[in-house]
């Protein structure tokens, strides 16, 4: 098995330390850092598929995100040296809406978006509508993600969408809402385009939107 295959396998099996050693080894062997990132990305995708098949759970997604981020840190100097600047696949603004502070799912969504090469602006928790608006204007975002767990979060989601409309921004962005209780009823109420109770599924939807342009 080649070192690259070994790296792929160790990430899929979530053997964290082994994965970092292999990333370092590949760098020493002068492998193309861009190619290493692609291997990591493919491995995270396979982990996502395993999550879908219920072979893996949230813990495994979190570990996958961690291994990707730590590996990317190891690769950073080499990527800079080679002056490889990846073209961004799109911009997403994410936050847990006003009145709600739950962020487990949101944090995983952010990590998975980053590992898919998407630029993410995470506004944190308890985010007032105005902060979403300002960030969308500043970054020219393609997608907004509202996160929330409490039923009261719905009111804040609706309010944020209304503000987007007033500002003439609604047609320029797609909106996805995420959280365990979200469903079609929530989506309509929040004036959103999609809903998901899974960070992994959410990333799939966003990727599809960005590909469609």
């Amino acid at each position: 098995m080649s070192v690259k295959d070994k790296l792929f396998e160790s990430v899929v099996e979530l053997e964290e330390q082994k994965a970092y050693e292999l990333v370092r080894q590949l760098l020493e062997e002068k492998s193309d850092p861009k190619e290493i990132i692609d291997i990591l990305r493919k491995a995270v995708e396979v982990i996502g598929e395993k999550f879908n098949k219920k072979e893996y759970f949230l813990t495994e997604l979190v570990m996958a995100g961690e291994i990707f981020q730590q590996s990317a840190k190891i690769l950073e100097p080499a990527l800079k040296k080679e002056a490889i600047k990846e073209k961004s696949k799109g911009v997403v603004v994410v936050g847990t809406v006003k009145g709600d502070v739950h962020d487990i799912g949101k944090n995983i969504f952010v990590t998975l978006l980053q590992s898919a090469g998407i630029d993410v602006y995470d506004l944190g928790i308890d985010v007032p509508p105005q902060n979403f608006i300002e960030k969308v204007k500043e970054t020219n975002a393609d997608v907004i993600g509202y996160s929330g767990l409490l039923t009261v979060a719905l009111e804040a989601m609706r309010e944020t969408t209304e503000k987007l409309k007033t500002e003439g921004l609604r047609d320029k962005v797609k909106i996805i809402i995420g959280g365990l209780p979200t469903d079609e009823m929530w989506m309509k109420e929040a004036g959103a385009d999609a809903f998901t109770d899974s960070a992994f599924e959410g990333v799939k939807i966003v990727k599809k939107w960005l590909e469609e342009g």
Partner: protein
Amino acid sequence: MEFEPIEEEAMTSVERVLTAMRLKEPDRVPVWPLIDFLPAHYIDVTAQEILENPDKSQYAYEWIYHKLGGYDIAMAGGAMYMMYINPFPDYFSAYYVDWRLPGRMLGVNEPPQLVERSLDNPLLTENDYDRIINEGLLWLANFDRAGMGDMTKLGKIGAKVEENTIKWWTYYNVPTFTDGAVIVPFDLLSVFRGSTNFMKDIYRYPDKIKEVSDFLIDDVILMGEYGVSKMKGKTLLVGAVRGSADFISIKHFEDLFWPYFKKIVTKYVNDGFIVQLHMDTNWTDRLHYLLELPKGKIYMHMDERTDIFKAKEILGDHMCIQGNMKPSLFTLGTPAMVEKQTKEIIDKCAEGGGLFVGAEIPDNAKLENLKAMIDACKTYGVYRK
């Protein structure tokens, strides 16, 4: 203020709930809307008063009980204070966990919310597992959120909660929701570490998590019994969230969660308490483990993520089940939608007893939707005339 009397039925709520829990058919399916801060949306009482003022709180709960024509499990006024201003290192304790409470870092009408500080600056670092084993948990206390004033109030409020608890059980003949609550060390550590950090720990330090859980388990059991002894209560809640299929694999569940959960529940049942398993998120693929718990002494609350029909199939002869109604339905739905879902659960799960219908009710729920669930249980849910 006088309330309109509740219409008498063949059984009292206490009889009905205990019969269903023993897996026999009562007069009708018991119904339990789990109401915490909802009255603040309808009458002149704030969420802060529901938390901190046992008289106003009891009034609010009696008001909603009568407004809805009666239901089968109620909350004692002031019980929430005992839960959040709990001096022990527990999940609900504002002394330990970063709970924002109404009137404290939140508006007077906002419900309590947990801030996990999951990524930056967690309450516990990964090096603190050893510190717990050496020093216990008391060093984690933070008196900024709850302090000496609260300690002094605890005794006074505790006495009131006892009075209110007894009033529900003997005057109204309605069981109280929970007189004490604990969670397994696994969930406690997850909250202290922040869930994202903790999920990494599951891979990096599984042996430490086990070691600390072994160290804490007996203290956790005692913490729950403090609540019931203080309020002369009968019911204990064992909560679980992070051990479910929404978080961890079966392997991690078996290693790090289940043995401790089983130990707590078995001890409380053996000590004669009514035990509620309060299991949020999705437990469907691990329901069969619950067959290892004592039969006919427990009721299990599940939210809409666990498949209640599967639960009936697996646990029907062993454990009373409850829940699964979707909370947002009570805010966004219509009475017809609520009635339809209530009837479906009754149709598929009521046979032979062992079912309560219910849900955790959002604070901004519509009363007509609550009434639709309650009335469906009182008419459609009748076992015998």
